[in-house]
């Protein structure tokens, strides 16, 4: 799991470099959110359970089996991009093979999709869990409520992880909801509500694992509120210094989930310093290779703009 977080961070950081170099027109990232995502991925059965992601789920998707190359292909908008063939902005994940549902940019709609996937799984008698992610801002959307309500009515194998980073772009938590912790809403749907420090990998793993078991056992859905830190601005089009106090930004750095877990691994003697170095180097190498490959890869054909609106005979 440590390896996965490190890789995600390396990919993520590189994206910003590419953006500054003028090679990546748009970047939105998950730095600071890695622990809850990697924990959740590892609590699931990849290829059987489903992820209905949101745009910060880079670490989640990598941990489920996407590669740095897959991701870089989307950053450059290449034809080979497995998420969308270069049609969508980066971080709009999707892979039928990995059971990562294709994502739009619209905040909130995915919650109902996850409920639908879980309903189908339940009715078909499949042992599958649908996990979906969203920010705390997204919980204000009507679709979030409607999806949670379905999960409650049918006791679905459904887990909603709210990655609460205190901001929706610039809108602070206090203007988003009248409560401190969104997990309080679970009781209103008749589902389990869990609060976890989303920067603590092991605690996150335990929380998601329990929710997955609840789902598999037929005991219904779970709403998990995971507090996390948004390290970067909302996206490459944003500058969080405009609306966040300097002190708050500095305090963030002390909440790095990777540093925390590294510290733990080193302190406990589970990992040696040199192992850590090689993990970092491998990640960098993988990212380098991915960027080289993706940069050289072909763009989609202009004429192919017209394809895949509907099912194609020979597709």
């Amino acid at each position, binding site marked *: 799991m440590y390896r996965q977080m490190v890789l995600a961070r390396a990919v993520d950081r590189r994206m910003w470099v590419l953006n500054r170099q003028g090679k990546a027109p748009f970047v939105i990232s998950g730095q600071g959110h890695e622990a809850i995502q990697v924990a959740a991925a590892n609590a699931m059965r990849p290829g059987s359970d*489903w992820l*209905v992601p949101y745009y910060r789920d880079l670490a989640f998707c990598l941990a489920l089996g996407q590669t740095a190359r897959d991701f870089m292909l989307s950053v450059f908008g290449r034809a080979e*991009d*497995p*998420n*969308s*063939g270069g*049609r*969508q902005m980066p971080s*709009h994940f*999707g*892979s*039928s093979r990995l059971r990562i*549902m*294709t994502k*739009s940019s*619209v905040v909130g*709609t995915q*919650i*109902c*999709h*996850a*409920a*639908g*996937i*879980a*309903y*189908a*799984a339940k*009715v*078909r008698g*499949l042992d*599958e869990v*649908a996990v979906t992610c969203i920010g705390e801002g997204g919980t204000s959307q*009507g*679709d979030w409520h*409607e*999806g949670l*309500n*379905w999960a409650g*009515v049918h006791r679905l194998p459904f887990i909603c992880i709210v990655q609460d980073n205190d901001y929706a772009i610039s809108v602070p938590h206090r203007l988003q909801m009248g409560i401190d912790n969104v997990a309080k809403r679970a009781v209103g749907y008749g589902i389990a509500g869990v609060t976890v420090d989303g920067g603590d990998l092991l605690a996150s793993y335990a929380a998601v694992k329990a929710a997955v078991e609840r789902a598999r056992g037929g005991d219904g859905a779970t709403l998990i509120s995971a507090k996390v830190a948004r390290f970067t601005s909302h996206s490459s089009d944003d500058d969080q210094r405009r609306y966040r106090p300097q002190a708050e930004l500095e305090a963030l750095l002390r909440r790095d989930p990777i540093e925390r877990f590294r510290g733990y691994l080193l302190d406990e003697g589970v990992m040696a310093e040199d192992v850590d170095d090689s993990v970092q180097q491998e990640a960098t190498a993988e990212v380098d290779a991915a960027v080289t490959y993706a940069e050289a890869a072909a763009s989609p054909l202009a004429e192919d703009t017209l*394809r*895949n*609106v*509907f*099912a*194609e005979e020979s*597709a």
Partner: protein
Amino acid sequence: MTQKTLIEGVREALMEEMERDERVWVLGEDVGRKGGVFLATEGLYDRYGEARVLDTPLAESSIIGVAIGAAMNGTIPVAEIQFADFIHPAFDQIVSEAARIRYRSNGDFGCPIVIRAPFGGGVHGGLYHSQSVEAFYAHVPGLKIVIPSTPEDTKGLLKAAIRDPDPVMFFEHKKTYRLIKGEIPEGDYVTPIGKAAVRREGTRLSVFAWGLMVHYCLQAAEEVAQEGISVEVVDIRTIAPLDKPAILASVEKTARALVVYEDNLTGGFGAEIAAIIAEEGFEMLDAPVIRVAGPDVPAMPFNKPQEEFFLPSPERIATAMRKLASY
């Protein structure tokens, strides 16, 4: 064969498709024990049970959103929106999600769902139980839009919709449900999506319509036939994909085009048909392309005089036919 109503076409298609393919299921408000507010799903609950004939929470966005999700996981949902007027909360799920899942994933995912909704007025439904909504969705690439006007087509097209790998919106004119009767062939058949049907051959002018208006146009055509005006009535049937060749072939024959729709005039789907004729059929035309449609007020009022004022009548259509024929 016995005459059946249009709504029986809906019911038979659902019953048979659920029997044929156990992936097919139905969801919506009151579709279960009650059998739907128009009884379109009557009998399904008893036969297939709650899990496949599901009464949903009163939340249209989730009806479509859940249907989309369930379609990702190996099922074929047929969602009923109780009245087309109440489809608007689901606009985002339909337009941003269902319509684009294939495109945005470059073909990696498909979205085989059907959305059924009764639409249209003339039933004292007032502002919120009378609307036509096809124009909104006809403008959305990635959706197929079907509006049957006969019992036979209703059954055949609904089956086609259910078997289609892409999202299909299926609008049923609620006034035609019991008003329109006709034969329904025995056994399994499918009416292909994307083909218009000439309901009446004619030479002097062509009329293009769908839903209830097809029947009003036929009445008007009958009326002006007495005056020697020969009208060709084309039932558009599927708004998207649109059967452009059939439209242009009819214009080629008559050189005159009238488009009739119940929806508000401005920006209604008839504008698209008129625009196509004005561009691709221009050299065949001997007269302006005329439209008869509902006025540009929000929707049909409840009281009778204003409801009648709104809904295009056979008389109004006949008047337009005479005008067009006289060019």
